[in-house]
């Protein structure tokens, strides 16, 4: 029971402070789930993002279901997801009902402009950490570089990037085995 409550509260907190969608949420998830609660690792979190990218639905929800299910089975998955969506429900309903006309308030837009900068800096630092951990070998750097090119210049959708990268992963393993190396 205590664990379920913790799951709900943790994802509620993440839901309240996520500005800018699923990827912007990653620094928060790392802090709460990896460093504070030790429910998962950076590497596992990345795997959840990979899978969340090619399964249907909102990525934030996919990740919360993953973590909750791992901790406490089906109920855990449901409770975490409820925790993640409850802040949205409350905040959006409040805005839709009464606050829509204040959304153009000057001070509010100053605050959001500030928050966007912080979110950019948080993502930058997260990327640096992931880069150091996840892109060590030459082949990993190759996959990263090709993905960046495909994303930036060819506007390929994320699903294709994931599909191509998994094919690359399998081939690198096969090739590595042929050469008698370890991957």
């Amino acid at each position, binding site marked *: 029971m205590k664990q379920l409550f913790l799951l709900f509260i943790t994802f509620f907190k993440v839901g309240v402070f996520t500005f800018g969608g699923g990827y912007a949420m990653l620094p928060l998830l790392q802090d709460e789930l990896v460093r504070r609660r030790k429910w998962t690792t950076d590497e596992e979190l990345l795997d959840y993002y990979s899978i969340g990218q090619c399964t249907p639905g909102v990525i934030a929800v996919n990740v919360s279901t993953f973590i909750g299910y791992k901790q406490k089975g089906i109920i855990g998955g449901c409770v975490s997801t409820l925790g993640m969506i409850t802040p949205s429900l409350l905040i959006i309903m409040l805005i839709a009902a009464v606050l829509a006309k204040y959304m153009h308030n000057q001070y509010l837009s100053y605050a959001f402009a500030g928050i*966007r900068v912080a979110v950019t800096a948080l993502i930058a630092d997260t990327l640096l950490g992931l880069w150091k951990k996840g892109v060590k070998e030459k082949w990993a750097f190759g996959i990263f570089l090709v993905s960046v090119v495909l994303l930036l210049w060819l506007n390929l959708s994320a699903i294709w990037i994931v599909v191509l990268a998994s094919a690359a992963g399998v081939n690198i393993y096969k090739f590595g085995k042929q050469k008698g190396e370890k991957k």
Partner: protein
Amino acid sequence: MIYLILFYEFFKIGLFAIGGGLVTVPFLFDLAEVYPWFDAKDLADMIAISESTPGPLGVNMATYAGFKAAGVGGAIVATLGLVIPSVIIIMLVSKLLKKFRNNIWVDSVLSGIRPAVIALILFAGLEVAKLAVVDWKTLLMFALFWGAIHFYKKSPIFYIVISAVVGIVFQL
């Protein structure tokens, strides 16, 4: 009755929108054409508000659209409809993953995807950066914040709260 329709429509979106929040938008435009709940102009407002409020974009959009269509009940039904397919699918995937975690093929697929996901996050970060870092004031703030984040590992929530205050004080 409207609750049932809302649930069904958003369940469908949850099932077919692969790749995150913004992907739900075209589906919502389809809904606007079929049902009298909201029109394209309402949707534009909804997107703007969903992007500047906390929470996952897709969930915000579902809540807003459901609320417009049928009040508080509509908001809850639409949001649950959107997330239930994900929850079921992810639990199934999670079960499979547990079973095949140590399978060498699954492992090589995942290790291939990892560097690609880092590229995807970089891409998302650049999209945010384009909106965030627009002049020398925001560039300076970005540099200072990154430095602070890197050397004082405080919670991201701390930096988000501070950044809102900085935004107001310096009128960004």
